[in-house]
Each structure stands twice: as structure tokens, then as C-alpha cells.
């Protein structure tokens, strides 16, 4: 793979990551959110695969397969099941309206670029140039976590956050050791599974998964 093609491909996958997370904030439909999350996972896996092919790193390709399986298929599937179980279609009342959260997004992106400036000067290259995208994803994840009320949306926010952390890890260090990656992935899977069970129980108990309604204890 030539260096210029590698540049283009990293730019493209970073662009897809950024675009899907913007659309995740833009769209309030939970169905679309699950699909976008799957697309984002696939883009992340593609990015890892590109790095693996470029650096001729065989374990990294295995990691890419793992990422694709987990973030592209398993987690969206689990989320979708959980969405069907709670019977929710849309995020009805986010704390912040779409227009202002989109504007906050652009501010967060700028912040990500400013914060990652030292990293960019440390080792200029196509992979470090895409690091701000990973940091933006982390910030977007926090934004979704703080402004959405529905349990599924919060899970989506958590997964965007995780995707952001993974993006930064792969871009800066060419990936973590396989065992560590496996452990982290299993952690995320476990958290999502637990939260899914919890969300299902909440929905079954109270007839909805709007977390803001759970402010007081009752019998």
C-alpha cells in the first residue's frame, strides 16, 4: 500500500467516523442510531485494518476482525434487541435541542483540535493527523451521555465514547497488545450486556426506559 493511498484511506475512515457520530447527535430516532453505530464500528475496524496492512502487522489484522465482529455486529445487535424490548422508537425529550447540540458539536471539534495540537507536533503523519477525530468522538460520547435521557441513547453515547478511546489508541500507538484489546473489548461487551438486562428490567418494571423518571425510590 503506497503512502499517499494510506493517507487517503485513513482520512476517509476518519471522515466516516466523524460523520456517523455527527449523525448520531443529529438524529433522534433510535433505529437510525443503532444502524449508525454499526456503521461507525465498521469504519473503525476498516481503519485498524488499513493500519495493519500498511505496517504489515498480522496481529493487528486479527484485532480488526475482532473489532468488526464486536462493534460492527454484536453490540448493535444487542442494542437493537434491547430497543425492541423497551419498545422505544425515538429519543423523545433530550435535555438539549438538536440545533444547539449540533452547534456544541462544532465547538467540541474545535476543542479536540486544540487539545491534540501537542500530539500533532510530536510526530507528524497521517495517523496522528487523525487523532483529533478520536478525541472529538470521546467528547461527542460525553455530550450524548449527558444530554440524552433514554437508556438506549445513553448506551449509544457510552459506545461512541469507547469508539473514540479505541480510535485514539490505534492511531497513536498502532494498537495495544492483542490480549489487552481482547480484555477491553470483553469489558465493553459485558457492560453493554449488563446495561441491556438492566434497561430491560427497568422497562418491564416501570413501562419505559426514560432515566430521568427514576429520581426517587419506590417500592
Amino acid at each position, binding site marked *: 500500500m503506497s503512502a499517499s493511498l494510506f493517507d487517503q484511506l485513513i*482520512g*476517509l475512515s*476518519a471522515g466516516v467516523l*466523524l*460523520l456517523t457520530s455527527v449523525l448520531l447527535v443529529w438524529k433522534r430516532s433510535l433505529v437510525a442510531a443503532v444502524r449508525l453505530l454499526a456503521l461507525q464500528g465498521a469504519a473503525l475496524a476498516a481503519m485498524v485494518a488499513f493500519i495493519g496492512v500498511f505496517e504489515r502487522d498480522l496481529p493487528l489484522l486479527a484485532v480488526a476482525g475482532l473489532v468488526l465482529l464486536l462493534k460492527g455486529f454484536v453490540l448493535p445487535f444487542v442494542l437493537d434487541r434491547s430497543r425492541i424490548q423497551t419498545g422505544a422508537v425515538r429519543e423523545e425529550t433530550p435535555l438539549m435541542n438538536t*440545533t444547539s447540540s449540533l452547534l456544541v*458539536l462544532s465547538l467540541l471539534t474545535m476543542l479536540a483540535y486544540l487539545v491534540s495540537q501537542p500530539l500533532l507536533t510530536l510526530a507528524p503523519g*497521517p495517523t496522528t*493527523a487523525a487523532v483529533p477525530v478520536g478525541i472529538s468522538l470521546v467528547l461527542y460520547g460525553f455530550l450524548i451521555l449527558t444530554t440524552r435521557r433514554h437508556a438506549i441513547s445513553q448506551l449509544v453515547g457510552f459506545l461512541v465514547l469507547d469508539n473514540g478511546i479505541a480510535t485514539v489508541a490505534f492511531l497513536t500507538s498502532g494498537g495495544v497488545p492483542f490480549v489487552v484489546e481482547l480484555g477491553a473489548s470483553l469489558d465493553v461487551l459485558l457492560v453493554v450486556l449488563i446495561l441491556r438486562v438492566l434497561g430491560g428490567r427497568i422497562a418491564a418494571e416501570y413501562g419505559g426506559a426514560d432515566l430521568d423518571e427514576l429520581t426517587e425510590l419506590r417500592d
Partner: protein
Amino acid sequence: MKTGAAFLAIVQVTAMVILSPLLVGLMRQVRARMEGRVGAGVLQPWRDLRKLFAKESLQAEGTSWVMSVGPVVLITSSALVCVLVPLVGTVTFPLVPDDLFVMVSVLLLGTVALALIGLDSGSAFGGMGSSRHMTIAALVEPTVLVSVYALSIPVGSSSLSLIVDARLVDPASVASPVSLLALVALFIAVVAETGRMPVDNPSTHLELTMIHEVMVLESSGRDLAWLELGSWMRLGALLGLVGSLLLPWGIAGDVTPLAILLGVLMLIVKLVVLGSALAAGEVFLAKLRLFRVPELLAGSFVLAFLAVTASYLVVQG
């Protein structure tokens, strides 16, 4: 170069004056056919214009000179936009830069003229239309600026003709993520600016929803004809701008009869393709509630903004 540029400017304005009513007619016809109607034919806007130009313009009592100056300002600004946008060729005047910022300010001049016409008669509807129009304009202009700015970063100049020239040399750059993001944002902005479907319904006269129609409600005869032609030329020029950026082929780099003829033919092809696509897309869309329009425009602004940040990403890498 001056005579060449002047010739090209005359060609572009003439072409847009002739083509833009046909473009509107084509879009209405495509829509009508897809909705199962026969339609009035592609030439109908021209027949309307001919009829209106033959009529004197009546002005309501209490209206001021704005009512008669407004149409002139609008048509002038539209013609100027047609000169500035590289529709047929990229040869420009050395003194009048076809700069992005110049183009947006000229566009805004026409917008303000139209809004003043809506306000001048003092009717409640006109005022509402103007207010909505200005709200949308205030949200659209930054998107247009930022999205074309994103395209201008790799070229290193905000001159539209240089941007189109660079794309002509390197067509692969059209498909880069930056360019696609920016073009999507620009397209949404153009749809909003020209009052097309998800933002404004151009074929309705329902007072509560319309934006453009309500502002020209008090105009009649020749004035109305100028206003309609001016708005159609804006639509044509902006679609042509998207066409030049998306499909830069066939744009004349120099002033020779053959190159210009090819440029005009390609302009017709691009307008037909984009206009039919836009009209076909409109059939499947419902008008957005007015309060959700800022959402759409904020989205397109963020896309444009991301295009700018991503273009720095690629340049640095």
C-alpha cells in the same frame, strides 16, 4: 483578457436568462409527471413571464419607492451572481474578483431587496414572509461561506474560478471526503436559499407556510416578472455553482467559440441533471415545520465546518 472576460460574462448572463425559466419549467414538469399529472409544459414559465411583461405594474396605496427599486436590485444582483459564478468558463475580470465573499454578499443584496419588498406594503403576510426569509438567510450564508471555504483550502484561494480550475485539473479531488462533505452542506444551503422543498414549498399559496410567494404577493405586472426572473436566475446560478463544483467537466478555460459552445452545452446538461434530481427528490419530501428548519441548517453548517477541519487533517497528513 478583458474583452474575453466581458464576452464570457455576457454569454453567462444571457444563457442564464434564457435557461433559468426553462429550468423551473423542467422542474415543475418532472414533479407533475412523477405525481401523475400532465403538467403545463417546460415553456410555461416563459409564457407567464411574457404575459406579465406586457402588463403594467400596479402598486398598492401607501407603498414607497422600495416597491419599484426592489425588483431592479434583485435582478441586478442575480445577473451579477451569474457573472461571478464560473458557469460556462473560468476567465474573469482582473479587477472584479469572482471571490467567494463577493458572491455571497451580492447574493445577500438580492435577499435583502426581496425582504424589503415584502415589508414595504405593510401587509401582515409580507412581513411574516420577510422575517422568515431573513431568518433562513442568516442561517444559510455562514454555511455557503464555510463550505466553499473548505473547498478553497486545498487550492489556497477563495476565488471560485481558481477552485473550479483546480478541480478540472484533478477530477479525483471531487470524490475526496472533504469535498463530499462540503458539497452536501452546500447543496442543503442552496435548497434553503432558493426556497425549495423541505424548507419552503414553491408551489403553495397557503399563507401560514410559504416564504417566497408571500413576499411577492403585493407585486404585479412587470415588477412581478422581474422578481420571478431574478429568483429563478438565483436558483439557476446556485445550481450551476453546485454543478461546476460537482461535475467540473466542460467548463471553458479560455475564450474560444468552440470552448464556450461546449461550456454552454455542458451547463445545460448539468442544469437538466441537477434540476431533475432536485425535483424528483422533492416529490418524496414533506415540508419541514418552520421550527425544525434551523435544525436542518445547523446540521448542514456542522457538515461544512467538519469539512473545514477535515481538510486541515488531509493537508497536514
